[in-house]
């Protein structure tokens, strides 16, 4: 079992079905509010990858000051395009403070908690543990070449 970085395959089809809203200017939605995107951490022994379709507590980390389901992602910018690429990045780092996660973890799943916890993407990093400390994920620049989520 292993976690693999990927944009979830189901997410690609769901985009075409209008299941996800990252924008506060979507005329198809009755309210000008973005969906809530959550970030959940997973153990190195878990299996989340392109085939993941929704958030699951199976394989998720647990420990002091970590809330099951993860934490909300800051979404203050709308998706944009440049050339033939559409892109979007969370507008702040994703972080957990004063947590103790004693079992090795190496992946984060972004998912849409507004819409049935539908999976968006998996990002992996080196396996590690955290002891009474902080864990943060700093985002790349939000542009067509570097954004966290890009569709080319």
């Amino acid at each position, binding site marked *: 079992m292993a976690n693999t970085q990927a944009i979830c395959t189901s997410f690609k089809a769901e985009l075409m079905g209008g299941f996800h809203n990252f924008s506060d200017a979507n005329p198809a939605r009755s309210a000008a509010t973005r969906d809530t995107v959550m970030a959940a951490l997973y153990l190195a022994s878990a299996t989340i990858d392109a085939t993941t379709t929704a958030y699951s507590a199976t394989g998720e980390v647990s420990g002091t000051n970590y809330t099951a389901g993860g934490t909300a992602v800051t979404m203050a910018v709308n998706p944009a395009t440049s050339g*033939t690429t559409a892109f979007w990045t969370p507008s702040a780092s994703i972080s957990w403070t004063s947590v103790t996660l004693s079992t090795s973890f190496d992946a984060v799943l972004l998912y849409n908690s507004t819409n049935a916890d539908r999976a968006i993407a998996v990002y992996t*990093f080196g396996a590690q543990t955290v002891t009474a400390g902080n864990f943060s994920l700093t985002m790349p620049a939000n542009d067509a070449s570097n954004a966290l989520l*890009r569709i080319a």
Partner: protein
Amino acid sequence: MPDEASTPLIWTIRGNLPVADLLYETHWVDDGAQLRLIETYRDGHEIVRQSVHVYIKPPAPAQS
């Protein structure tokens, strides 16, 4: 000599400890897809606090 009220403390798995009594180390790991900074506080051989900060490098886009 500073009194107890002014002694800098840091939160650890053993509660608040004087930071001056701990060994602070940093370790950088660049494994291509991300860059990690690992901060460790040790009391002797025991890790009493460890924080990890990950910079996610630009991942590959979904290609049309």
